[in-house]
């Protein structure tokens, strides 16, 4: 009964989406307020029905209803409840359900919270949102129905792929999807603006919170996925330039560019045409990401099934939406009015610089990810484009971006004073020089350029602090005055400083791990001692430990300082899942400050020697910590009252709320 209810609800959602996709647009064309006002309730109703469908699927998993094919293939009654829930999106059909649920959720949010939007813009935007929803509802119902039944229900399910049975999976896909799909709002608003042929600074003000929210979720989602790969796959790497990772990085890069260009549009009414294009491109890259990951053209942990009709369906969605949006852009963008003037050296100029480099970096990732596919389709040659390609293209493009980043917030709008900004950054530059010297003196081995990487990271972090120091006038005026300035400062200024500091911290982590991480691979026996970095590990042997739907073989290591003092123990594990006859590696981690010791076990060989991978990862936690600081920056910026209050009337709002900068 439950799965049928879910399928029926999804069909109703499709019907509602089709009405929502047409009526409001007709209303906006004919200036019919009744038709336009249909959009918000329809969006909410569509969300309710999608939510019912999603919950129905969830109930099938919770109840372990193996008469549902999707549940049978991906769940098992011995699995803990949390993994039965997360296995909803641990497969193709369920993850598409999550995708449309989030899409409908965002549509409903716009409908409920967009009370201050102009009627036509809101109607058009919700209609565009419904086009996307309708396409994906249809996709699920025709090619990826999660509610299909098996005539003779089996007694037990086939279990979820063991490497997906991990708490990280509870969090990573939903966050990533909130990011991907959140950009659909920017897309819908961009298309709505093009349909109307009118756009102003207020548009950026309405869209920016959505972009910011999506960007925050995507940042956390990518960082979460990276950390999951780090500890679950047992290879100790945090980023592999795998096509699937790139698929999430591309919308992030474009979204970051969009976030910055929307600031220029909001504050200075400039770069309108460019911002619209970025909004279209960002969501297009999200769609391409979905296509790459879900179509089976790439084989990875995320490509759940290889079914050509699905790939072709998603490809069709891709062509219609991206092609259609870009055609509309080419046709309507010339109608949009140009905005304010600015000198090359100015806040706007710095943000344009940011946009140029971010989009170019995004383009290199795009080419590196899709070139192998294109080449195979054209010539049949199979190639792989690995980390060396991305390191030598993406890296050089990111360095200028990092070097200029601290200058941006210190420059004035319209016309900036680069000398004064440089003067204020002198302390940061000196700190960075000290860091470079210290890195040369303290660290041996590693690439020659690594200390400069540390220098850039310190410069970015110190630059972010400089901005706050300058604005609060700390050390120059009494402490109470500093405090009141700090509290009175717009939250978005704090947000910028946090986000920039976070990327500097992440860079420091990446450089440290890449240049100075140590690795030790060996086959060891009980009693063996391994020295790594400043630690000495003794292998005390292995023991067995049963689990609910798996069996563990645990290795026990005692960790000592070089001086001999015991500081703890590590228990890396080989986990065997009988339901799929599969083994996974559960790495053991020991955190020392922001660095980590990392051990993973291999299969013991015939003479009882256990292969181990042992890493010392200096500053590794800064990578994800930095991403989390960026997320906090986004949250601070999102809480800025200037984003929440006012801005209902395009022209007036700008005059009344323009910041005094």
């Amino acid at each position, binding site marked *: 009964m439950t799965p049928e209810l879910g399928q029926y609800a999804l069909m109703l959602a499709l019907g509602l989406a089709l009405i929502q996709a047409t009526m409001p647009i007709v209303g906006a064309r004919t200036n019919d307020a009744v038709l336009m006002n249909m959009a918000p309730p329809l969006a909410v109703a569509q969300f309710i029905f999608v939510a019912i469908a999603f919950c129905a699927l969830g109930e099938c998993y919770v109840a372990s209803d193996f008469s549902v094919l999707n549940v049978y293939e991906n769940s098992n009654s011995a699995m803990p409840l949390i993994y039965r829930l997360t296995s909803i999106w641990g497969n193709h059909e369920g993850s598409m359900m999550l995708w449309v649920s989030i899409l409908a959720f965002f549509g409903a949010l716009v409908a409920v919270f967009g009370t201050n939007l102009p009627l036509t813009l809101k109607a058009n935007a919700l209609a565009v949102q419904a086009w996307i929803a309708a396409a994906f509802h249809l996709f699920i119902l025709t090619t990826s129905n999660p509610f299909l039944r098996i005539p003779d229900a089996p007694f037990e399910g086939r279990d979820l792929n063991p490497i997906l049975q991990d708490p990280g999976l509870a969090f990573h896909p939903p966050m990533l999807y909130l990011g991907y799909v959140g950009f659909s709002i920017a897309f819908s608003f961009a298309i709505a603006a093009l349909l109307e042929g009118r756009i102003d600074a207020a548009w950026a003000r309405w869209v920016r919170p959505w972009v910011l929210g999506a960007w925050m979720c995507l940042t956390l989602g990518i960082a979460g996925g990276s950390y999951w790969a780090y500890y679950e796959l047992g290879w100790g790497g945090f980023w592999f330039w795998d096509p699937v990772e790139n698929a999430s990085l591309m919308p992030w890069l474009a979204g970051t560019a969009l976030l910055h260009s929307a600031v220029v549009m909001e504050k200075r009414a400039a770069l309108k045409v460019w911002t619209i294009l970025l909004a279209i491109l960002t969501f297009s890259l999200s769609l391409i990401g979905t296509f790459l990951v879900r179509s089976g053209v790439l084989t990875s*942990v995320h490509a759940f099934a290889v079914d050509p009709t699905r790939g072709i369906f998603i490809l069709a969605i891709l062509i219609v939406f991206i092609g259609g949006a870009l055609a509309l852009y080419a046709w309507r963008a010339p109608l949009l009015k140009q905005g304010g003037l600015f000198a090359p050296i100015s806040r706007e100029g710095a943000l344009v610089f940011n946009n140029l480099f971010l989009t170019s970096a995004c383009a290199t990732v795009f*080419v590196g990810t899709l070139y192998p596919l294109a080449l195979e389709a054209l010539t049949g040659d*199979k190639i792989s*484009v690995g980390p060396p390609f991305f390191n030598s293209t993406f890296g050089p493009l990111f360095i200028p971006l990092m070097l200029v980043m601290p200058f941006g917030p210190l420059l004035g709008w319209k016309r900036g004073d680069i000398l004064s900004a440089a003067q204020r950054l002198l302390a940061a530059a000196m700190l960075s020089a000290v860091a470079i010297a210290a890195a040369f003196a303290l660290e041996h081995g590693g690439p020659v350029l690594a200390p400069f990487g540390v220098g850039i990271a310190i410069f970015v972090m110190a630059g972010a602090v400089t901005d706050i120091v300058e604005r609060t006038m700390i050390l120059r005026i009494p402490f109470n005055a500093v405090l009141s300035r700090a509290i009175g400062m717009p939250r978005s200024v704090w947000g910028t400083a946090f986000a920039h500091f976070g990327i500097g911290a992440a860079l420091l982590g990446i450089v440290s791990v890449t240049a100075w991480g140590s690795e030790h691979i060996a086959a060891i026996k009980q009693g063996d001692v391994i020295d790594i970095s400043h630690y000495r590990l003794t292998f005390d042997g292995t023991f067995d430990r049963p689990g609910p739907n798996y069996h563990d073989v645990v290795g026990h290591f005692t960790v000592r300082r070089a001086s001999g003092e015991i500081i703890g123990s590590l228990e890396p594990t080989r986990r065997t899942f009988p339901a799929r006859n599969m083994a996974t590696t559960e790495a053991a981690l020991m955190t020392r400050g922001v660095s980590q010791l990392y051990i993973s076990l291999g299969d013991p060989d015939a003479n009882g020697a256990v292969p181990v991978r042992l890493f010392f990862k200096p500053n590794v936690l800064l990578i994800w910590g930095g991403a989390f600081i960026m997320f906090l920056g986004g949250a601070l910026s999102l809480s800025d009252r200037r984003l929440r209050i006012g801005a209902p009337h395009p022209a007036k709002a700008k005059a009344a709320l323009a910041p005094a900068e």
Partner: protein
Amino acid sequence: MTRKQRRLVLIGAGVGVLAVAVALMLNAFRDSIVFFNSPSDVAEKHVEPGTRIRLGGLVKDGSIVHSGDLRVRFEVTDGNSEIPVTYQGVLPDLFREGQGVIAEGALDGAGVFDADTILAKHDETYMPKEVADALKKSGHWKDDYAQRAAMPVGGVTK
């Protein structure tokens, strides 16, 4: 600065950065691309020793020989030809005889493939796409594989 000048500066800067990006990409494409080959391809195309390639196929039954110090030697086959592979390190969780495997590295002078990376999928029912295509090409594709590969379960590249 007039509107027209500003637009020229912007477009100039955009083209400049894009040109740098393209130059970087072309440069990177020249020396960081790795071709995928089956053992038959290696024989047919006379892949030079020292050229980095990816070698894909099945691990030949009974060919795995472990020696001390984590050294392993095995043969990769596509049914028509075999190439011996040596590797030192920890093998992936699902490296097994009769399973699909991709090795990255280069041939040495004696025709032995010296791998520095071994990729095997994390799921025993999964067949890497490249390997499946190569087996089909060499006529050694069994329906059994297709059935297994079509099962909607995940595999992992790493």
